[in-house]
């Protein structure tokens, strides 16, 4: 950590940034001995077992939890950590949560080893973003695994809980000006002791929630994940010995660091940046704010800073933990894609030089509960842009691993509440748009509805699953076309759109929706930015009448009624039986000049109905004849003309300001 002096990164007044050597109470003994020799088969068996244990930890949470946010959207993460809290394996879930687990665990080692002490069978719960969570809802559980009297390692998870209290359902407090208007924030406390859950602590946590039962189930799912992982690690140690298992853990981290190092060797030194704009620090605020991430590569180390980010304001902040997690996510995908989630070795070569007091690294008491749907995707997007530009400068073939930006609103998020068709209160978060899209890379188009790369296991719920849980009817869910949004020499995969009407209720409160005022996405090195994420709402429609008459409306323009203008962080919208609501997850970013796009690739999209003749001409300068074929010669002329037109419309000169 290189920061201004006299500033304490203690997890209290400022985010927690752990020192290289932790200050742990001497009463706690760590298991550090390693076997000198491990044969290759044993190494492979143990390494795979550990990875598999972590996957089983994740699938246990996923299976046993009941909120769609966790089980379908995979808005959680789990990890095995070394005795000092270095993250070893991450699961294929929400990547940015990985490092938050390491921070929380290290903080516990430093601040809880003396009192109340760290013992076998303990589970610590923390919701404190200044210690190490991305926002309060992403509650972390971390549990020491002891072998004999020594602390061998940690198992840990972070799960997004549907409601953990605070002034609004879902706990995303858009109006917050500081943390006291946010849901409560619990620094690490002992949820379980000696293998037993403490009823008082469990109640303290659950008592805050509007959805005590749901959150209770999810909490038990998270506890079950820990106990599955802990049990299997102990079996592994029993069979192979603590020193052998530890040797495999350390060597796996070393190997990860070496593999990352080899990638860094292929990248020139230099500095790369990305800037993403956002609006509305609280609902109604007309201001525009900046998220900026810069990467400086010097030899074998990456230095990350957030200089250029706006001063912290309103509810659009994230803590140091969020900044670190959001940056490591795209680094893992672009430079550690071959490590299967071993991220610990990577973070050894990445140093942070954060500028505190900013929206991308705020100080206490900045409000952060909304970060999960606003800041975190935005900072991941910002970091993605910076990392992608750096990786694009790498020697081939590494430069092909650069991947353009997913949307800053990548969840297509929409949070709503009301009474469901069974008469129960619920808070829903739409996961239908989790079909995502893979953005473009140098050398490759993205993948249409190919998922969200920084939540590798993410999956869209089936329409039927949504309709079973919520009082809605999905009129359509279909892929977008591949027009201007995300165009480029290599285009982004397309996103999707869906439309809902109410069914089984006559009232739904739309709590949070993200109608971007302007596009926030950035294209990569000549590509178009992705599209603008938006929702639309029409009231007083005849959708119900059309359905009853046997027609399923297939577009907002196919129903009568009045469109209600929706704004970013607009006031909660009320849906009634005449409402029709659409959610659009835009295509993500493209790469390279669209006029350089291969004609054969344009032809495939035309034939497949993904690209209109009009967009082929306007976006790609491709002239399509009446038979639907791209005319090669006329396209060459057209493209030459486009280039001339560009220059005619452009000005050469130094930027203003």
């Amino acid at each position, binding site marked *: 950590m290189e920061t201004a002096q006299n500033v304490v990164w203690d997890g209290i007044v400022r985010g927690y940034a752990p020192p290289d050597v932790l200050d742990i109470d001497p009463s706690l003994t760590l298991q550090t001995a390693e076997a000198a020799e491990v044969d290759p*088969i044993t190494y492979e068996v143990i390494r*795979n077992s550990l990875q598999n244990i972590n996957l089983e930890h994740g699938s246990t949470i996923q299976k046993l*939890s009941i909120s*769609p946010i966790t089980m379908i959207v995979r808005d959680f993460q789990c990890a095995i950590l070394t005795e000092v809290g270095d993250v070893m394996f991450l699961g294929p879930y929400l990547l940015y949560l990985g490092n938050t687990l390491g921070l929380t665990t290290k903080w516990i080692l430093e601040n809880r080893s003396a009192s109340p002490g760290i013992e076998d069978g303990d589970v610590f719960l923390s919701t404190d973003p200044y210690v190490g969570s991305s926002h309060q809802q992403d509650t972390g559980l971390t549990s020491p695994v002891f072998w004999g009297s020594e602390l061998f390692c940690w198992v840990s998870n972070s799960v997004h809980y549907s409601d953990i209290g605070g002034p609004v359902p879902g706990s995303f407090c858009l109006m917050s000006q500081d943390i006291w208007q946010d849901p409560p924030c619990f620094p690490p406390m002992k949820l379980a002791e000696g293998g037993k859950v403490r009823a008082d602590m469990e109640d303290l946590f659950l008592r805050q929630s509007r959805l005590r039962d749901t959150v209770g189930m999810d909490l038990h799912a998270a506890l079950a994940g820990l106990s599955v992982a802990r049990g299997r690690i102990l079996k592994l140690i029993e069979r192979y010995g603590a020193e052998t298992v530890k040797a495999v853990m350390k060597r796996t981290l070393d190997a990860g660091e070496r593999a990352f190092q080899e990638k860094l060797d292929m990248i020139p030194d230099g500095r790369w940046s990305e800037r993403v704009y956002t609006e509305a620090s609280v609902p109604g605020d007309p201001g525009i704010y900046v998220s900026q991430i810069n990467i400086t590569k010097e030899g074998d180390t990456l230095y990350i800073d957030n200089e250029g980010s706006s001063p912290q304001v309103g509810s659009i902040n994230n803590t140091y933990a969020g900044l670190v997690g959001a940056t490591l996510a795209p680094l893992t995908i672009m430079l550690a894609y071959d490590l299967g989630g071993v991220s610990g070795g990577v973070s050894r070569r990445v140093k942070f030089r954060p500028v505190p007091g900013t929206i991308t690294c705020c100080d206490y008491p900045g409000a952060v509960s909304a970060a999960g749907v606003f800041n975190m995707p935005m900072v991941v997007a910002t970091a993605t842009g910076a990392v992608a530009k750096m990786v694009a400068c790498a020697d081939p073939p590494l430069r092909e691993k650069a991947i353009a930006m997913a949307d800053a609103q990548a969840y297509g998020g929409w949070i709503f509440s009301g009474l469901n068709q069974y008469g129960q209160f619920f808070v829903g978060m739409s996961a239908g748009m989790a079909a995502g899209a893979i953005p473009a890379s140098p050398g490759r188009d993205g993948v*249409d509805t190919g*998922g969200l790369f920084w939540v*590798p*296991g993410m999956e869209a719920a089936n329409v039927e699953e949504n309709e079973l849980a919520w009082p809605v009817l999905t009129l359509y869910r279909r*892929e977008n076309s591949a027009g201007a949004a995300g165009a480029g020499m290599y285009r982004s995969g397309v996103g999707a759109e869906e439309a809902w009407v109410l069914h089984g209720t006559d009232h739904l409160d739309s709590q949070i929706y993200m109608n971007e005022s302007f596009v926030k996405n950035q294209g990569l090195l000549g590509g178009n930015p992705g599209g603008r994420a938006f929702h639309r709402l029409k009231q007083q429609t005849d959708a119900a009448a059309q359905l009853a008459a046997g027609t399923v409306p297939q577009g907002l323009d196919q129903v009568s009624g009045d469109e209600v203008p929706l704004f970013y962080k607009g006031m909660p919208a009320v849906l009634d039986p005449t409402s029709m609501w659409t959610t659009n997850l835009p295509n993500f970013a493209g790469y390279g000049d669209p006029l350089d796009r291969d004609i054969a690739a344009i032809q495939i999209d035309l034939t497949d109905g993904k690209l209109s003749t009009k967009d082929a001409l306007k976006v790609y300068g491709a002239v399509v004849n009446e038979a639907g074929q791209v005319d090669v010669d006329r396209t060459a002329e057209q493209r030459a003309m486009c280039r001339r037109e560009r220059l005619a419309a452009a000005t050469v000169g130094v930027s203003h300001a």
Partner: protein
Amino acid sequence: MGYYIGVDGGGTFTDAAAMDDEGRLFYAKAATTRDDFAMGMFDALAALAEECGVEVSELIASTNRFSLGTTVGTNLLVERLGARTGLLATAGHGDSILMMRGSGRTAGLEPELFFHPQITDKPEPLVPRFLIREIDERMDCLGQEVAPLNVEQVERAVRSLVEEHQVEAIAIAFLWSFKNPAHEQQALEIVRRVAPDVYASCSHQVSPRMGEYERTVATVINSYVAPASAAYFRRAADKLHDSGLDHPLLIMQVSGGVLPAAKAVEVPLTALGSGPVGGLIGSLAMSRQLGHANVIATDMGGTSFEVGLIINGEPLVADENVVDQRRYKLLQLQTTSIACGGGSLARIDPHSGSIRVGPESAGAQPGPVCYRRGGTEPTVTDADVVLGLLSSESFLGGRMPLDRDAAVRAIAALGDQVGLGVEETAAGILRINNARAAELIRQQTVVRGYDPRDFMVYAYGGAGPLHAFAYAHELGVKGVVIPLGNGASTLSAYGCSTSNLVLNFEREELFFAPFELDRLNRALGELEEEARAAMFDMRAGGDEVEIDRFCLMRYRGQWLHNLVMRIPRGHLGTEDIAGVVDDFRSSYDTLYGHGAGVVSQGVELFSIRVRAIVRLRRPTQAMEQQFGKPVADQARLGSRDIFWPDRMERLESRLFDGSRLHYGNRIKGPAVVELPYTSIAVGMDQVLECDAFGNFALNFEHTPGASPVVGTQSSTLTTG
């Protein structure tokens, strides 16, 4: 004498196995004929009749039971030779199968690839966008109609698909059809009326499970493979009937059971991939006899290498299957496969200048160069012949002499391109092939956290026994069993012949605890009736039908989790249900830790299953009574120089006639045991032993990695 016959067709060879009334086993095989699978089957039966010492007509006429397993559906999918298929989907939801829930890019792939977006992509769609038709209709989650079916639209869509696009099959998959199938049924009637020759299936029949994506996939795959599969079943059944078979032809299913052909054609999806299941069932029968709790069942044939697992005496059952990154829900025994076998082609990779083996295969036509059927590119089998592991004279019991010179020429030509000698090239081909097989086993065991050292490998299929000495050894498993010796190359056929009639019925219906007893009893009763009626249709009924009833339970809201709980027989009372709920809660705590469940959280039952089994009688396998001497002189055929790829040296190796080996014989490597349909390679430091059931056990004297494990285990004791 009566016979119980199993046939496994569709691979490079069509395999046949028979047991007679006295429990004696016979095996035979013949080349699969691609144009008309039935021809290959009759060739195999002719060979089987010869083994049994009877005329083929007599064999068929005196057969008490005839079971057929097939890879025809898998071949259609893998080679993309299925029917041109159209899809009718609910308006607004035709993209579902293309969007693949956003996870189609990585579905079924190893988790490592999840972090690597650039090398993952979605598969080519089975139904391209222009063959998808959206139909105005809608049901809701309770099965109530929201919008009526637009009948004219269906008719127009069907006409357009059939007349303009010449589809040969149609899949109908509407939202919530498993709750209320009325619209799918209506649409099906229209298809039958408008296009009576086009095969059509509905999602509520094929996979009546929640989740429109998976249900649509199941239905599309079913329709895609149906026309060719059904034709295959019918032709086989007709021909067997014409040849005097007096019993219905039974078709192997992925459930591990069999069904009469007339029933199996209704939903061919349930036969898809049943070939490897036959081998797994055969391995299971054998592992129970031998007392092996953990088995890696490996089947290497001409085109593919299949792996299934038996853990603690039970085959792994999967509720979901992923074929080619397409996920669907169907109860089945789990097997995994890669294209890797005797027919795998060895080619030069132009980019790296290295030799690549597979995934392309020469199949049975043209087959390996040494088959003299027009093959010009060298295969793994050609390499076996060049090295001397396979004899050119005694292949298929001498009925099919192999052209060693042609194999040598082809491999030499390949070697020339990369500057390697003939033997080096052939050995390299085998080493690459074995490494690919070992990697799949590693994926299935190590990657899932199972240590292969706790397992026995069962090696069967035509090429398994010949290569297991290398691929199994590499993983350090306990040992290898070549089940049934010569029968190993036809184990799937044997497994088919041992299978019972099995039907699974399932209904998704939601019950909140305390369950409405009347509704539950009614639903179970209906399902049970359905199962009994289906069995009755198959001429099985009364007491011989064993009914097992299960339900899927979860805590309220857990969509992705369930525990399968057994429901007691008969009419359920309040106490029975309380017992089932208690069982659920305690199983949950056992699995996920004490207190994992939340007492206040309601329990729901969301699906009921009825499994009907009719156990098909068969004789007990005859055992060899006499324990012979370890020395196997009676079977000695002499010696041959073999170039062993694992050692890269030529060694004088002893040859044995496997058919003359007896219980108690021991053979030390290097040696090759020749059997009519396969050969068993016994490497240096390996010993082959014969048991009373005709199985051969291949034991390794040195297991790699064994000694360090012992060392660390003892250090564990002192640490702990």
